[in-house]
C-alpha cells in the first residue's frame, strides 16, 4: 500500500530523516515545524488505509456515511464547508473526495473546479454526492471534472462499489 501514498516535499524529507534515525525534535527543528504537526504528519504517513474526505454540511448525512466507510476500513476525514474542504485536501491529501454540492460559502461545483484546476490536486478523484438530481446539474458536475455523480438518497452498497471503481480507474 506504500506506493499508493501521495507524498509532498516535506513528507519525503521527514521519511529521509527518519531513515537516518533522527529524533522527532531534530526533525521538527530542521523542517521548521512544530512537534505536534510533525507527529500528525508521521501518524498520517504511518496510516496506510485509503483516505476518503467527505464534504457535507449536514452532520446527519456525514455521520452514517463515515461509519459505513470506516467499516470498510477507509480512513475517513470530514469537512463541513467548501473552504474547509480545500484546506483539508491540501493538508491531508486524501485519496478520494465525496463532495456535496449545497455547501455554505463556496459551493460544491466551485470546490470541484478549484481542485481540478490545481495541478497539485487535480489527480484526486471526486465523487459528487448530492440531492440535486437534475440532468443539467449532473452534466455541470461531470464537465467540471468530477469522476462520478451519485444522487441522494443513495444505496450504500452501490456507493461503496462506485468508490472502488473510481479508485481503480484513477489508480496510478
Amino acid at each position, binding site marked *: 500500500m506504500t506506493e499508493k501514498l501521495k507524498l509532498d516535499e516535506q513528507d519525503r524529507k521527514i521519511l529521509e530523516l527518519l531513515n537516518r534515525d533522527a529524533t522527532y525534535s531534530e526533525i521538527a527543528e530542521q523542517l521548521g515545524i512544530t512537534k505536534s504537526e510533525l507527529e500528525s504528519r508521521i501518524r498520517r504517513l504511518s496510516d496506510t488505509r485509503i483516505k476518503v474526505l467527505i464534504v457535507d*454540511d*449536514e452532520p*446527519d*448525512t456525514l*455521520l*452514517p*456515511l463515515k*461509519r*459505513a466507510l470506516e*467499516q470498510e476500513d477507509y480512513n475517513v476525514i470530514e469537512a463541513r464547508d467548501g473552504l474547509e474542504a480545500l484546506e483539508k485536501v491540501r493538508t491531508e491529501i486524501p485519496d478520494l473526495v465525496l463532495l456535496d454540492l*449545497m455547501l*455554505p*460559502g463556496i459551493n460544491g461545483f466551485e470546490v470541484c473546479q478549484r481542485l481540478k484546476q490545481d495541478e497539485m490536486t487535480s489527480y484526486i478523484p471526486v465523487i459528487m454526492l448530492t*440531492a*440535486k*438530481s437534475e440532468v443539467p446539474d449532473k452534466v455541470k458536475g461531470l464537465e467540471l471534472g468530477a469522476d462520478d455523480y451519485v*444522487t*441522494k*438518497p*443513495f*444505496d*450504500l*452498497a452501490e456507493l461503496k462499489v462506485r468508490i472502488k471503481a473510481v479508485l481503480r480507474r484513477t489508480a496510478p
Partner: protein
Amino acid sequence: MNRDSRVAILVICVVLIVMVILLGLRSHGEVRETVRTQYGEQQLMLARQAASSISEFANERVTIIEILARDRSGDPVDNITRCFQTIYTKSEGFYSIEYINASGVVVYGYPEERAPIGYDLYAENRSDIFEAVRDDGETRICRPTYLFEGGLGSFIWVPVHDGEEFRGVILAIIRVSTISDKFIAPLMANRTGYVYMMDNHGQMLYNGELFERPWNGWTAIQSDQASGKEGTATCSDATNEEYIVAYAPVRWRDQLWSVGVLVPESEVDSLIRSVYKEQMIFLGAVIAIITGGSGGLILMFSRWNKRLEAEVKAKTCDLVRTNEELTRANKQLKELDKLKSEFVSMVSHELKTPLAAMKTSAQVLQGDGIGGETRQEMLNVILRNIDRQTKLVTDLLDLSRIESGRMKLDKEKVSLGDIIEDAVENVRQEAEGKGLRLDIDLPEGLSPIYGDSGKLRQVLINLLDNAIKFTAYGGRIGIKVRELNGQVELRISDTGVGIPAEELERIFDKFYQVGGAQTRGTGLGLAICKGIIEAHGGRIWAESRPGEGSTFVIVLNK
C-alpha cells in the same frame, strides 16, 4: 403654444404696425398736396362767389338807373327826381342819387342832406365826365374816389336824352364800403385769414392795410389780379409764413376789380391734422382691436395648449405608471418564478437530505459487526431526521392552509407570559450552547390574550430559533413585552448580523431567504409566523440595523 411662437406673433404685430405708420408717412405728402389743392380751390370758389355777387349787385344798380333815365327821358325833371326816393329805399345800396341839369348844376338829390344842391360842375371845373357822358350818350362809371364825407365811392353817370335833346345826367353814388360790408366782410367771419379787394389800378378798395406790410410773391399776384385773371397762388409774409391766395375778378361794365382771399397754409395743416386725428383714432382703434384680438387669441391658444400639455402629461404619466406597474409585475413574476424553482430545489433537497441520512443509517445498521455505540448513533440520526422531515411537511401544510385561508385557530384565553416561557425553555439549550444570553422582560400582571397558544408558541420558537441562528457566540437575545391601548406589543431582539433595509419587507415572503441560498433553511418560517399573527388579527414586522442586530415586533389585540 410655446414662448417662441408667442414672441413671433408679437414681432409680426409690431412689424405690421410699423409698416402701417411708414405707409401713412409716405402718403402724408400726397395727401397734403391734394388737400392743399382742394383748399385752394375752395378759397377760389369763395372769391369767385363774392366777385360775381358784387358784379351782379353793381350792374343791377346801374341798370335800374339806366331804366329810369330811358323811361322818364321825356318827363319833367320833377317826375324823374320823384322816383329817386323810391329807388333809394327799394333798391338798397345807393349812397345818393342826384340829378344834374343840362348846364351842369346839381338840382336835386336824395337823400337831400347828401346832395350838394347848386353845385356847378363847370364852376368847379369838374365837367369833363359830364361832358363825355352828354356827348356819347353812354353810361359811365368812374374809378372809386374819395367822397367829401370820407370813404371811397363809385360814381355812376347816366345821361338822360329825350330824343336829340340832352336833358341832364343822373348821378348815382355807391360807396365801396356798402359793397364790402355786404359781400366781402361776411366772407371771413369765423374763419382764419383775410379778404381784400382792389381795382385794376392797384388801388386797395377793402382791407388795404393788409398790404402795408411786405409780402413775398405779392407782385405777380397783383399783376394777375389787375389783368382780370382768376386763380390761386402762394405768398409769404415777413415771418415766412406761407399763405394761399385765391382771387377772382369783379366785372362792372368797364370797371375791373378783384376780390382776393388770403389764408395761411397752416390752415391746410390743421385741416389735415384734424383729418389725421380722426384717422389716428380709427387706426388706434384698429390696432387696439388687432393687438387685443391677437393677444386674446394667444391667450386662448396658450391656455388651450396648456390644457393639452397637461392632458398629454397626465396621459404620459398614466402610461409611465402603467408601464412601471407592468415592469414591476413582470419583475415580480420573474422573482416568483425564481422563488418557485428555488422552492422546488429547496424542497427536493430538504426532503431528500433526511431521507438519505435515514437510508444510509438504516443500511449501516443492516451491516455486520456494528458496535453498540454506532448502532445508537445511527438510530439517533434516523429519529432526528424523521422529526426534521415531519417539521418540513407540517410547515408546508401550514403554509398551504394559510394561503388558502383554511388555517384553524384554537382560540382561548391564554397567558402570553406562559407561552413565552414555554418557547424560551424550548430553545434555551441551543442558546446556551452558543453562549447567548436570554433577557426576558415581562410586565407584572400582564392581562391574558385571546389566541391559539400552540400556534403562538410556534411563532415564538421560530423567531427565537432565527435569532439564535443569526447571532454570533456571546451575543444577547431579548424578549420584551408591554401593553398598549388594548394591545400587547412583543419585541424579540438580537445582536446578530441584522437584515439589510431593502430586505426587511421581503423576509416575510414565502421561500425568501436573506442572502439567497447562503444560509440554509426552508424560507417558510417567517411566512408561517406572519400568517399565524395575521390570522390572530395582529401585525408583525422587523426592524434592523445591519451589523447591530434585528428586532421582530408583534402587536396582538388583547
